[in-house]
């Protein structure tokens, strides 16, 4: 399908148009020995030593193309990052698209190129895919579903079970840039500095896990933002976190967008950041390592882990002015407000 064409139902029905779509659009973008046979399943090589890690995600974003990325790029980064924060080395991905009849050829090419670029940056191989086309009005332009397979090397054990009182909490960069950029697009805000942080973090994660710091757990604060992630970890690990507002890195464009629309950067999605729980004696080493990495430039220590007593908030924020407040779970996503 060419860029100046429009997607038809027939492109998803398995016949000639589907074959052309795969051969002319998908295969050239992702070409590799596993994908090329276009068989029903990709038969891979043996897994490297270690424990296999498997993840899947559905990706929906509006607008589909935004400053700093697009649905294609996002859907690969998101899955790569889920593997990376589990301590796995991402290897192979599958990519399924549900597209709406009438989609612009130009847009489809953009999404495919975005996904291919993310694969190259992350060093992963797309080995299987599928496309379905739904009637106009039955799908919001495009949805992507990505699965990823990786391997956790022998001897590596990350997870919330290792988070305990005393652990420092570190973030690899400023909060909320992706969520703020999306909201800005929807509500008429612009600015060259309003860019999503969307990026693949496999290399960053590997650097962190081999720098000698005693890292206990990592999470990427996507949907619901850092506040939601911290809440979930605190609940699972049976601890509480005390964050320091003055230490939270937030870019000024993101902060301004939040002030204008009534949003909180702690609740906005990041698609290229990682939260790290580390033994406190290694915090400095971790920060130094992060800041030397191109994707860890704004890294900062944001708080600490404490034992939790009955009736205490799971996440507490020490505010900029010396007060404090609990950081709650949102019932839904952040909405712009006037009040």
């Amino acid at each position, binding site marked *: 399908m060419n860029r100046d064409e429009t997607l038809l139902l027939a492109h998803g029905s398995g016949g000639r148009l589907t074959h052309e779509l795969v051969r002319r659009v998908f295969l050239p973008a992702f070409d590799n020995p596993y994908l090329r046979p276009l068989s029903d399943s990709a038969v891979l090589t043996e897994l490297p030593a270690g424990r296999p890690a498997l993840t899947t995600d559905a990706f929906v974003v509006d607008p589909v193309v935004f400053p700093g990325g697009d649905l294609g790029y996002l859907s690969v980064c998101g899955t790569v990052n889920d593997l990376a924060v589990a301590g796995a080395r991402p290897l192979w991905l599958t990519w399924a698209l549900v597209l709406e009849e009438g989609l612009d050829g130009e847009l489809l090419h953009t999404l495919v190129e975005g996904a291919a670029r993310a694969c190259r940056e992350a060093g992963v191989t797309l080995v299987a895919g599928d496309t379905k086309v739904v009637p106009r009005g039955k799908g919001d332009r495009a949805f992507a579903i990505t699965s990823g397979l990786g391997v956790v090397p022998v001897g590596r054990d990350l997870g919330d079970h290792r988070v305990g009182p005393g652990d420092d909490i570190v973030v690899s960069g400023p909060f909320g840039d992706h969520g703020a950029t999306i909201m800005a697009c929807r509500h*008429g805000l612009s600015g060259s500095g309003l860019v999503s942080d969307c990026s693949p973090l496999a290399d960053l994660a590997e650097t962190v896990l081999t720098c000698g710091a005693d890292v206990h757990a990592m999470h990427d604060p996507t949907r619901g933002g850092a506040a939601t992630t911290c809440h979930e970890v605190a609940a699972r690990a049976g601890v509480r976190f*005390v964050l320091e507002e003055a230490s939270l890195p937030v870019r000024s464009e993101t902060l301004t967008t939040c002030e204008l629309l*009534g949003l909180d950067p702690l609740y906005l999605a990041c698609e290229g950041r990682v939260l790290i729980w580390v033994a406190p004696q290694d915090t400095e080493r971790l920060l130094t390592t992060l800041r030397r990495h191109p994707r860890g430039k704004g890294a900062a220590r944001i708080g600490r882990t404490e034992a939790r007593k009955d009736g*205490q*908030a799971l996440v507490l924020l020490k*505010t900029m002015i*010396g*007060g*404090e407040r609990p950081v709650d779970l949102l019932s839904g996503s952040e909405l712009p407000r006037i*009040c």
Partner: protein
Amino acid sequence: MSTPDAFSDRATVEALVRRVHERASQLRRPVTFMEVCGTHTHAIAAAGLRRLLPPLVRLISGPGCPVCVTPVDYLDRAEAIAALPDVIVCTFGDLVRVPSSRGSLERARARGCDVRVVYSPRDALPIARDHPSKRVVFLAVGFETTVPTVAAALAEAESERVSNFQILPGGKRIEPPLRALLTDREVQIDGFLLPGHVSVIIGANAYAFLVEEFGVPAAVVGFAPADILLGVVELVRQVVDATPRVANLYARVVRPAGNPHAQELIARFFEPVDTRWRGLGTIPASGLGLRAAWAHRDASSIAVAVPEPREPQGCRCGEVLKGVVEPPECPLFDRSCTPDAPLGACMVSSEGTCAAWYRHERFGTGAAA
């Protein structure tokens, strides 16, 4: 305004907190100050200000969140209109999860209604232009800060002949509830932190009645921590010196007579009407309805079936909003009424008195000393 951070600067705020404590040491009895602005409630909670105040100074939240006090029948009507086949409802994000009799606008959207969140009432106009066969209804809630923006959008719709744009009027005035609070014998308020941005529109002079008729201390304040604390310092001083006045501490944007263009637009399109407040009942002349000349812009005349409005049984929001009881004294608090399933006005907004209490006061801070 290149140094907004000076108003949130920690050292400045700490100095102001010390000043509050110093002044409060001259108080001979506890005082209760009320802020009447949802944005103030939010700002105070977000900064964690309350705990920094001396024990004799209590800050309470009054009925100043236009979203929280929007009555159930307004939401029911909005949902019923949204359910009509050729209607697109546009709303501020604040209203999307407010509970109605049957659910909320969010649930209405899930059922297939076309409900869209906008940042500005003006953003509904291109939607109306893009869908000429549909009726676009904007849910016009808010106090005097927001009402002129709706009026301006209506003026633009008139001059650009966007005939399919209407509003469901739900705007409110700040003066009537202030009067109602002060004429209520149960209520003991020693001073008001007045809403800075409403005051931008109506002017600091609009509050003269607080002093002239009721002798109550008042300060018009902005929304940064330093602004709010300056207001508390001022109110304590007025109490101690027994010199009530309306102190304009937000003069960088609040003028004595307010914004004449905004006031003219409000008066052109709206007139005071009696309206119900969630939790407080009907307050005369407290709402703003569209004047008869603009009946063609008024979506409240659309014929829809709306359930009989009912306040939840046992709800004590009215008393909470007046500062007469605290949330745990309401039988519904933390039982049938929680932030995830709010019944009354005080729980509806994330920083309404009950919601704030639920989230902040249930927990001891327990931070390592």
